[in-house]
């Protein structure tokens, strides 16, 4: 394999709460290569949300270096981070996070809007993304007129539309029933087979086992990092 897409080098994230110091990430190093499907798993308080924020360029580490796609992201400021998020990362959230007052099409167009893509091109790309997740016919609907599964597909379409290098999914099945969860996971696997790099954040071991590689966090440190087979063996 060539250059890693994500290269986390000795990442620390330290919060100060009064006089006590909380080390949410306590020296995490991790390399993720293009085309991988990695699950980051951990209990609440393990530091998985913090590392997700850093990987997603929503936050920067207190110490350490984060190289994303060959660029050092760890020292960037607000607007530069926004640019990175816009161009490089596609987010899939637990609560879908579609804007309630916008139609499905407008929601999917949002990242392109902020990227400055022309109107016609936006519509073309957004419709293609909706077609890919199989809800093209719903493009005029508002989010509250769609089922949970459809909304999550909409948010996947929004993550895909800018053709990002990385898809970052934060508990994507957390609000779905088991049948729709299965569909979404199958779809993520399909996207991975098509060559997309996917990082899945979850607290659920069985969901984590859908990935090809599992990184388990505990107390802000990497507890386990290896293939899914090895992970499964370790647990039982």
């Amino acid at each position, binding site marked *: 394999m060539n250059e890693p897409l994500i290269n986390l080098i000795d990442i620390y994230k330290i919060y100060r709460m009064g006089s006590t110091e909380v080390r949410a990430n306590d020296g995490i190093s991790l390399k993720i290569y293009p085309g991988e499907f990695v699950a980051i798993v951990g209990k609440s308080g393990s530091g998985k949300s913090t590392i997700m*924020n850093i990987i*997603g360029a*929503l*936050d920067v580490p207190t110490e350490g270096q984060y190289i994303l796609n060959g660029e050092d992201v760890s020292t960037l400021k*607000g*607007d530069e981070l*926004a*640019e990175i*998020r*816009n*161009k490089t990362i596609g*987010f899939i*959230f637990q609560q879908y*996070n579609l*804007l309630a*007052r916008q139609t499905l099409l407008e929601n999917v167009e*949002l*990242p392109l*809007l*902020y*990227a*400055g893509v022309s109107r016609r091109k936006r519509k073309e790309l957004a419709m293609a993304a909706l077609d890919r997740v199989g809800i093209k016919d719903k493009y005029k609907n508002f989010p509250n007129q769609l089922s949970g599964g459809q909304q999550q597909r909409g948010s996947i379409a*929004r993550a895909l539309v800018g053709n990002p290098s990385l898809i970052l999914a934060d508990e994507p099945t957390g609000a779905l029933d088991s049948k729709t969860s299965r569909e979404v996971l199958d779809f993520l696997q399909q996207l991975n087979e098509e060559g997309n790099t996917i990082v899945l954040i979850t607290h659920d071991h069985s969901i984590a086992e859908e990935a090809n590689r599992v990184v388990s966090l505990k107390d802000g440190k990497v507890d386990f990092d290896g293939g899914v087979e090895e992970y499964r063996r370790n647990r039982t």
Partner: protein
Amino acid sequence: MNLFQTFKLAIKSIVGNKLRSFLTMLGMIIGVTSVITLIGLMNGVTNYVLSTFSDMGTNMLTVSVTNTDTRFVKVDDVYDFVKKYSNVFEGVSPSVVSNYTLKYGTNSMSTTVTGVGEDYADLNDFKLSSGRFIDYADIKNRYKGCVIGTYIVDELFDGIARVGDTIRINGEVYTVIGIKEEEADSEENSADDCVYIPYSSAVRMAGTAISSYSFAAVSDDKVDTCKTLLDNYLYNIMKDEDLYKISTMAELLEKVTEMTNMMGSILGGIAGISLLVAGIGIMNIMLVSVVERTKEIGIRKSLGAKRKDILLQFVIEAATISILGGTIGIILGWAATTNIGNAFGLDAYPTVNSILLAFGVSAGIGVGFGFMPANKAAKLNPIDALRTE
């Protein structure tokens, strides 16, 4: 994200919250309407006052003299003085003003009777509908003839008066020699409520010397020259500035204009306060809106919205609300100004300046008062914003 898309987003958000948007706008509407209406009406009043005064002649100077036993102004000397400076003076007329009872048959009324010279009608630019004005012979002979206005015709003659009719003024018999053309709808105390008699007759009837003269300058810009000449002339005779007084219509006009302008500024200022209150209302709503839409801001930021994108979104939303309110205010203000103006018989219309001012202030308030909440939104941390429900 360009301006047009941001604007569309703002419209969407305003339409999505109709009642709230309307209530926010209401402050702006009331503020702008009152500014435009008050300034427009004040302007109408000023114009009305000015035109009334101009009708009375802006080239006129009035002199009042307090004659003493040893120092007094003689009528013939005044006429000679005016003839000497005929390059600046158009003419002069003494005026002897008294209140008398008028009688015609069984009708009687009380009004102002003015003793004047033969040039009075020309100096004041009024015309007669029948008969003739007082002439030089009438004055020399102390002829008891009078010229009456249409209000007198209506009140004393019950509407029909002819040249040659006789009336009693203060008990003395006068013949109507002319009737003045109607000027002001024959209202009481207007230019149509008048009786003119030769000043010589008036002096005799009142038993006093002539204490007042009306001078006319050849043009408005010669008024100051006339005033200086008169001042010198009168001082030479009276030797005391307190014994005579010269007032010009132009000075009076200036005072009145100054006063109405001041009134306009005060009223406009009071109305302006309501614009300020409207601005605070907009800021308040935008602050609430930012809190309400924290999650939306978080989502937008996570998808790549920059600070200026969010800032612009909220500033434009605030500006749109206030400009919309301002525009409605301008339309209402226009309607109110012309309608109220009509009701009072004023020729009132909103001035271009007041419209520009109102529009500028409403747009400025929108941007100014929208900026603080917008900046608050733009500075939100995406992680915290995403976490809120």
